[in-house]
């Protein structure tokens, strides 16, 4: 139980930074974002499909990302998200917070060596 709770909290805290980081590379649509998180963590971090869109909408509400519809011939229109200037600032801040956190964890709990 304890493990699941920790996992949930970590996930919730990290989801935003993950999405922002993915959007930093290029504009992406929701499916793409979910797929990439799954792929890059080798399945270690799987997103509950239910939380992807609420998170995207929350980030959009905060003005960190911005969605717009893009149509391509012969395809459905898709909503692509891109990082705003505010999102970029938040991302770099969160990155440094996470870095410090990981370094601190490593120092105390030897997570790095584990």
């Amino acid at each position, binding site marked *: 139980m304890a493990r699941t709770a920790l996992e949930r909290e970590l996930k919730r805290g990290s989801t935003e930074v993950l999405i922002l980081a993915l959007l930093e590379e290029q504009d992406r*649509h*929701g*499916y*793409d974002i*979910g*797929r990439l998180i799954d792929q890059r963590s080798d399945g270690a971090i799987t997103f*509950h*499909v*239910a*939380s992807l*869109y*609420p998170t995207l*909408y*929350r980030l*959009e*509400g905060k*003005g960190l990302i*911005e*969605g*717009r*519809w893009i149509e391509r011939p012969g395809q*459905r*229109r*898709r*909503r692509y998200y891109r990082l705003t200037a505010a999102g970029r600032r938040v991302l770099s801040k969160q990155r440094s917070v996470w870095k410090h956190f990981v370094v601190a964890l490593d120092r105390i709990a030897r997570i790095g060596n584990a």
Partner: protein
Amino acid sequence: MDWTLRIRDAATRAGRALDPEVLDELAAHAQSAYDAACARGATVGEADAQVTNLIRVWIANPDSLNRPARRVPAIDPPSHGSRRLASLAQDLRYAMRLTLRQRGFSLVAIATMAVAIGVMTTLASVVYSVLMRPLPWADPDRLVRLTETHAGATRQMPLTMTSLGYLPWLDSPATIDAIGAWQTGSPIVAVGDSTDRFSTASVTPSIFPLLRATPLLGSVFTRDDATDVVISFGFWQERFGGSAAALDQTIKINGQPFTIVGVMPADFMFPDRDTRLWRPFRIQPVVDDKGRSFVSTFSAMARLKPGVTPEAAAAEATARAQNAPKETGPVTLAIFGGNGPAQIFAVPALDALTHDVAPGLIVLLVAVTLLLITAVANIAGLQLARATTRYREMAIRSAIGAGTSRLAQQLMVENLWLAAVGGAVGIGLSALLHRALPSVLPADFPRVNDIHFGWTVAMAAIAITALTGLALGALPALHLARLRLAGALSEGAAGAIGGTRVRARTVMMTAQIATTCALLIVALLLTRSFMAMVGQDRGFEPGHTLSARLTLPDFAFKPAQRLDALRRFVDLARALPGHPTVALTTGLPLSGSENLSAFDMPSVQHPGTDVQAHAVRSVVTPDVFAALGLRLAQGRTFRPEEDSATAAKVVMVNQTFARQYLTDHPVGDRIQNFMQGDGVPFEVIGVVDDMIRNGLRDQTQPEIYSLVAQSTGPATTHEVVLRTSGDPQSLVQPLRSLVRQLSPDATLGSVLTMDERIEASLSRNRLYAVVLVAFGISALAITAVGLFGVLSYSVAQRTREIALRSALGARPHQIFGLVVAQGVVVTVVGLTIGAVAAGATTKYLTTLLYGVSSRDALTFVAVGLVMIAIALVACLVPAMRAVRVDPLTALRA
């Protein structure tokens, strides 16, 4: 597969509705997931099941799928700064459109503002340039002008020193670094073959180091007995084409040769801008080695030692001047009309120069400031009234998202725009006024050359404009804060907010009336003073009289020849068209020439004793009393046949002389010594009324008139007086050709009618009066329009109330009275405040007033009546409008 339909069905089944865009987005996701599953090798059924599962998860909590209500703008929103700029630009465009749409209002507002800002800027520039700008010499704060007077003096000579006060101070003074003196004149200057009169100054050599002035070329003179002359830049350019060869050339001043040793730079103007030459001035010792006393009068300036006050310097000079030699007593008496101990005053040079004009200028500046305030108040009032029609506009703007600050910004921009246009026109006007100033200002106005239209003036105008615009915008903008905009949108609600607006305008109106009242009182006081000065009986008749200065120079005329030439001149002049009465005198009023004399004469009041007498002594031809229109009080005037050169010596005196020195029956009294101290007795044959020679406030001096024919030698210069029955101007040309005919060496100067002389002496007073009357009338017009506006607006506001009153039985005259009373109350309150303010301040005007008290009741009452009359006229139309309100129509509306 239509995923959109499937997801919507699922949501509907769960009793939820999804945002269409969210629906679209999830459908796209579902399609991708389905395609991916198929690509991984899943069967169609497996893939479908996976996606169905996905949809179920989504729909389980559709609330979290609500997209935030944040609109995505079609274009990138501008950054905060540029958004503000954009809104300013928008407001400015709107203001410009408004100006064009409301042409009448804009024109009135801009014109009023332009005139007010233009005149205010110009006056501020004059006040700064004349009263405040430092004098153009090094350390000007330490320069003081000196004035000498003596205990018991009956004649004050501001800014004049004598050798009695000057010479004792030269010997190692403690309080001053340097002292210098000068006299001005307009001698005949000959350069090569051309001769002309020029303004020159005889200056002590100390003047140049005192002012720290250095020549552009050559050097200045260092000895007071040298025959060196320094020329001005202008003279150098005109006469020598700016050639260095001018140095060492010889020019003749009144026939005497001088060598040019230096050229001063263009900006050296001393003592005034007209001076073209400077030659050495030697101040003779008060008593020479033969025991003769000689006192000269001149202007003097000193440079204070650092940290020394003018008072300390004056005290030192006064102390040093106490031991004047006894021999100088009569001369002091002649000059000052009193010969008690000397007293020296020192005042900062700038104050001395501008002392006469400072009160007038300050009054004008205050007046124009009041005028500007009145004008701004009026425009602000008009703006407030206009706001009626704009409440709906403001309310709509507010309803579609404009905040109060945004609306205030818009009003501010509109008014700043109006002010800016008004200011721009005003600056142009000020530039024109600056150009006109030298011809508008009286000839003796100090520092006219220092008044320029430059950057400082333009900046001042911009500052005044900005202040005006802010003041103008602040009022409606402040008002906006109190606005209940929602109410304005509902029909007929204007009355709810009208009350405060009328009150604000009434307060402003009262202030305007008070200001106008004060302005008019000052204007009327100054006008009445000016009229009193013009109408003042001066003891002579200035009408129909031409005067001029005739000079027969020493180098061309020996005394006998001169006497002969004068006689011929009078004969020829009598034959001029209209056969004028012709006379010569050495002491014409308002000409600046008078001979002052003092002498010991055997007393006629107390026989056996001597009396020290002083008098203005004029040497005249017999017709002078008729020509000047002097009134004979007792005895007879001169008769050419009886009072010839060989006949018994006779004089005439004025009443002051008779009262001071003669018996109760002065005709027949004899006076001695007044001419050369030669003891020859002169019999008094008549007494004339006193006349005012120069300033109206000057004390009348004793006067003696003797005949040219009976004097020992005629003077070089005489004033010519011609009285004609026609226009004296018509004699100017004949007189000039007559003098040319008389002798090529004779010169005629200062050809002026006596009326012109009086006018010139009062030109400052006239300027102040004319300008103030113009201000006063402008203020009155502005105020009348304002009052009309307030009352019209108030009647419009009260239409329903008035209708109700008349429906309830009020008679037309009562309705009429209602409106008029409102106007009259505002006027009377304003008048009272204005009159009290004027009463408290006009006492500062006393130096400008003549023949009228600063609290002249007639003036105050007249202004009050005029303003009430104007106010009634302004009330008339609104009151008639109120009477014509039809209760049925008004109440049904």
